[in-house]
Structure formats: structure tokens, C-alpha cells
């Protein structure tokens, strides 16, 4: 049983220069994961969008205006030092959300969640969503629901699971055939749906996987901030709010400096330092 012994660290790279903001990832995510919707979706603050596309601009006026679309799934944070105490996992009083040390995936156990919403308060990415209403499917539409994903009831929190059910299916197949999961056997719905091929998904621990090759994760903690582990050695790659030590497994990529800078908060003059250091650390990668 090779599969059970192997420690994965599933992660994602999203190329923001390729993303066109078409929203296919959002749609495929919703339909794949039986995400309920409201009759009136005009108030986005209580809509459920496991994958949400943000629109960022460089704030400059025409003709220098630039726009970037930033898809944001759950970042599957590894927590400070990447020890598995993600912002949301460490706070949930009922262990309804958990860190998979064998996959790096942050799970959500709907039947155990009692809706205190502490995890929502703790997640700086707003990746967690509460079911304010009972899910209702228009007549006939329940036939389209995926049988592999349980629908969630009113009063519980949900979020992106990196399509964990797809992992389970691939894993079972691999276990039966006594082999390891192949890279393409387990891919999230958003990855497969993206027409621009902006999303790459795989095992960050596996040097044969594309995500690993793009990210080139630093095996050592960041010398400038020991809370940060797994920083990319690719100078084009960054994570959101990396300096907080949440250690996300979703990496973003852009050629443009203003986009990379938008990934985090910097005090005056700090970015120059971080940027130089970032570039330097990539040289040994």
C-alpha cells in the first residue's frame, strides 16, 4: 500500500497573467460541489462562492490602467511554521475543520459544525461561507447534484475542499491497483475548467509535479520570518498575506510587480527590501 505511506502536500498555482476573469472556475466549482445559491444573489456578502474571483487594478488612470483578476479558493493554510494549525483549524471548538497531515488539505466536517462562525472570523481570506439559508434547488435541478458531495444544511460553514471527493476516488483506485496517484488523476474542478489554463494543481512535495516545478518551495523557513515556510523560490510567484504566517498552499504567479505587491501589506519602503530578498532567495533554487 504505497499510497497510504506517502505524505502529499496538494497545492495550486494560479497564473494571474493568464486568467481572463471569465469565471469558469467559479461556475465549475459550484456545480461540482453542490454549492447552493440564493434566489437573489445581489448581496455578495452572504453568497456562497468557494472560488471567488477578485478584480484588482493598479489604480492608475488611462492609458496606464491595468486590471488583474485574482481567483481565490480556500488557501489550505498550513498555519504558523506550517505545523497544521491553520487560522481556522486551530480555533474551531468542535474540531469540525481539520488539517490533513497526509494531504495538506484543510477539511470541513459539515455534520460536526454547529455554526459558531469563529473560523470565519479567523480566516483573513474570507474563504469560509455560512449557510444562512436552507439550500433549495429549482425543481428538477436536484437531479444534477453530484452524488459524491453532500449538500450542506442551514447553519453550518462550508468552504473549498480542493475537490476532496476527487482525491478519494483517485486514491481508492490507486490503492486497489497498489500504486501511487498520478498527477492528472486528481485535479480540482476549477483547474480542469479553466479555459486559459491559468490554474495548475498537484503535489507540492512531488518534484515530478508541475506545481512543484513552478513554485520550487523553499525547504527552509524564511530567514526574515520564521513563521513562513514553503516560500517560493521563483521570483514571479507569491502567496496572499504570506507575512502573517498562514502558509497557504495556493500560490499566485505574475510578471507584473504591482500584482505581486498586492498580495500582501507592506509599510513604506518595505517592499523594496522584500523584493530584493525574494529575488535573492530564488537564485539558489
Amino acid at each position, binding site marked *: 500500500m504505497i499510497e497510504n505511506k506517502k505524505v502529499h502536500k496538494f497545492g495550486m498555482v494560479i497564473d494571474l497573467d493568464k486568467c481572463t476573469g471569465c469565471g469558469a472556475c467559479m461556475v465549475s466549482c459550484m456545480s461540482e460541489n453542490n454549492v447552493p445559491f440564493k434566489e437573489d444573489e445581489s448581496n455578495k456578502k452572504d453568497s456562497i462562492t468557494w472560488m471567488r474571483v477578485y478584480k484588482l487594478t493598479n489604480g492608475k488612470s488611462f492609458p496606464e490602467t491595468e486590471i488583474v483578476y485574482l481567483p481565490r479558493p480556500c488557501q489550505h493554510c498550513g498555519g504558523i511554521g506550517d505545523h497544521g494549525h491553520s487560522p481556522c483549524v486551530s480555533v474551531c471548538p*468542535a474540531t469540525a475543520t481539520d488539517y490533513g497531515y497526509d494531504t495538506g488539505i484543510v477539511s470541513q466536517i459539515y455534520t460536526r459544525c454547529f455554526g459558531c462562525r469563529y473560523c470565519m472570523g479567523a480566516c483573513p*481570506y474570507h474563504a469560509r461561507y455560512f449557510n444562512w439559508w436552507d439550500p433549495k434547488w429549482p425543481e428538477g435541478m436536484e437531479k444534477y447534484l453530484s452524488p459524491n458531495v453532500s449538500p450542506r444544511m442551514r*447553519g453550518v460553514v462550508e468552504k473549498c475542499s480542493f475537490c476532496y471527493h476527487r482525491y478519494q476516488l483517485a486514491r481508492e483506485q490507486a490503492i486497489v491497483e497498489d500504486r501511487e496517484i498520478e498527477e492528472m488523476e486528481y485535479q480540482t474542478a476549477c483547474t480542469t475548467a479553466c479555459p486559459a489554463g491559468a490554474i495548475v494543481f498537484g503535489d507540492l512535495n512531488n518534484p515530478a509535479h508541475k506545481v512543484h516545478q513552478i513554485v520550487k518551495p523553499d525547504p527552509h523557513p524564511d530567514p526574515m520570518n520564521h513563521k513562513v515556510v514553503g516560500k517560493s523560490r521563483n521570483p514571479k510567484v507569491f502567496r496572499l498575506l504570506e507575512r502573517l504566517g498562514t502558509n497557504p498552499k495556493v500560490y499566485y504567479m505574475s510578471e507584473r510587480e504591482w500584482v505581486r505587491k498586492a498580495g500582501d*501589506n507592506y509599510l513604506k519602503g518595505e517592499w523594496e527590501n522584500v523584493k530584493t530578498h525574494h529575488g535573492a532567495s530564488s537564485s539558489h533554487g
Partner: protein
Amino acid sequence: MDDALIPEGAKRCAFPIFMIGIIIVGAVLLWGVYAMFLCWFKGLNQTNMNDYYGFALWIWADLAVIAVGGGAFFTGLLKYIFKVDDLKNIINFAVIIGFICYSSALLILAIDIGQPLRGWFIFWHANVHSMLTEVAFCLSCYFAVLTIEFIPNILENRQVNKVPFFHHLAHNMHGVMAVFAATGAFLSFFHQGSLGGVAGVMFGRPFAYREGLLIWPWTFFLFTWSAAAFGPCFTLLVTKITEMITGKKLVGDKTVNLLAKISGWMITTYIIAKIIDTIYWAFVTAPSMGFKLGHFYSNNGFYGYWILITEVILCGVVPGLLLINKSTRENPATRTIAIILGVIGVCLNRWVMVLQIMAVPVLSFDTWALYIPSWQEVATTILPVAYGIILIAVAYRYLPVFPQELELNESADTAAQN
């Protein structure tokens, strides 16, 4: 009509007047109960909370009542453990206020959770890393302790006390109360602290996050400290209000001034610690995460520096100074101003630590999330207040809450009789 139940020698208003008061407050209570059922049966969509503002008005109220209910544990600690005997004149009332605060807190939690029937999961699937788990355990245990502390007072009702068993039970319970006071103080230390920890451990939220000692962020200690400091202020404030409504002096000046003095010193030391914490956070913690102080207090229509200044200076430093200074402490007007400011200060602190956290954007491209509560939230937040008023009214009417009442009002009563 209910004369037989009223403590011996005590003067109370006529029963119909009492009932009119209860009915008016009861109507407000029912309004809250209606809103509560709406939240239970229709769900939390009845509120204006959303995924950005997952905690709302009543969660603030929850933390605020726990903070001001801290008067019970701290007064109990002083009376039973440190043997500050003068506090015997106010301890019954402090316990009743504490009981109201904690039962309200539990009620609010029952409304707040999305799946109330699963509330027990917090005990069953307890995550030892979560501060909220600690809160749940300590809060429930402490509520049990407060109930035990409240029982002897109920048993002292004139009619109940005639039953020899209850009479002796009350007597014996008084005898062992120090044990419960100590247990209560211990539990309170942890749950007040862990409520502070709830915010302080959120390392993804730089507005809340604090460094600290081992697993405890500074907010853990600040919350316990502030509850012990401002809780007695609330006890004094409610006493003052009760005195105004009943038109009687219920607690002697010596006791009031003593509690005010202790509170004053606690507030002063707390506020020094709070200022140090704020400075360290503003100049070390937040900048290490890429934030400057202004980020948390600008670019929005509500959370300005005014909130920090009001909490720390106006409602922290000022009441502290007014209460440690003998002349202002013993002057009823300045003392009352100080205790009102103190109560506002601790409530504002809880507001900031619950709601401002949610409102501040963390992602560099995010915006402030402001929020206006729905009437259901307002009603369920007022519900505990109405319940508290009714419980205090009933307790005052039928239980010997204030041991000094007869002695303090003797001359007035005799004068009235002549």
C-alpha cells in the same frame, strides 16, 4: 396581596404597581423572545450578519455582559477569600447580577449558533487548541457555581425559610461558600481570559492578534483584568439604579466607597497595562505584519481614532483617576460619572475586540465591511436586559438581597409612619 412573601419589615410598593412594571418590561421581553424564535426557526438569515461580519451586535453584548458580570467573581473573591468583610452588604446583589449576566450570555450563545441543537458538540468533539472550547467549559461550570451561590439567597425568602430543611441548607451553604467563591474565581480567571484569547490568537487578523505568554496572548490577561476592574463598577451602577427606582438607600456608603476604591485601583493598573499593550501592538506587532496603526482607524465611516481614545482615555484613565482619588470617589456625582464611564469603557473594549476585527480589511485589495443590525438582532440583544430587570425586581421584592436595607431606611420609615 403578596405581603407574606416580602422580607420581614421591608417596605415594598403595592402589588398592582409592581405588576404594571413587570408587564411593561415583560412586553419588551416577549418581543425579544419572538425575535429569538425567528432566529431559531427561520435561521440566522433573520439578522444582517454576513460572511464578512460573522459576529454581530449580540456577540458583542455577550462579551460585554460577561465582562460586567465579572463583578460577581471579583467581589466573591474579595469577600470570601481575602475576607474583605464589608462587602457582605453587596455580595448577594453582585451574585444576582452575575447570575443574570451569565444566564444571558448562555442564552445569547444559544441564539447565536447556527445549529443550536448541536451546541453540545463543543463539549463532545472538543478541540483543546481552541480558546472557545475553554470558554464553553468554564462558562458552563461557572454558571453552575453562580447558581449555587444564588440558591441560599432564594432559600432565605420568608416563606421558604420557614421550612427547617431549607433554613439549614441555606445556613450550611453560606458556611461553605468560600469553596465556591474560590472555584468561581478560578473558573472566571480562565473564561474571562480565554474570551480575550478568542481574539488574540487570530494570527490571520492583525487587528486582533497579540503576542503573549506561552499559548496565551496578552489579551487573555487583559480581559480577566478588565472584568475584575470594571465588573464592580457595573455592580455599583446597577445598585445605584435600583436605589433610584426604589427611592431607598440599599447599600451603605462605606461599602460603596470601598468597592469603588478597589475598582479604581484595578482600573488604573489595567489601563496602564492596556496602554503598554496598545503601544507594543501598534509599534511592533502590527508593523511586523505590514500594517500601520492608521490602517485600522481610517478609510471608513465609523471606526476612527475616536474609539481608541474614548476607550482608553475617557473611559479608562478618567474613571480610574476619579475612583482612586478620595474626594472624587466619595462625592456621589463624580463617583457615578466614573462608574458609568467605566462600564462604557469595558463595553467599548469588547465591541472593538469583536466587531472592529471583522470590519478591518486584511487583504490589500479588500475594503471595510460595515454593518447595521436588523431589528431581530436588536430585540434579542435587549431581551437579556428585560429579563435582568424582571429578575432583579422579583429578587428585590421577595428576597433579603440587601442586609443593610432596614438599617439604612429605618429613620426615613419611622418618620413616614409618624
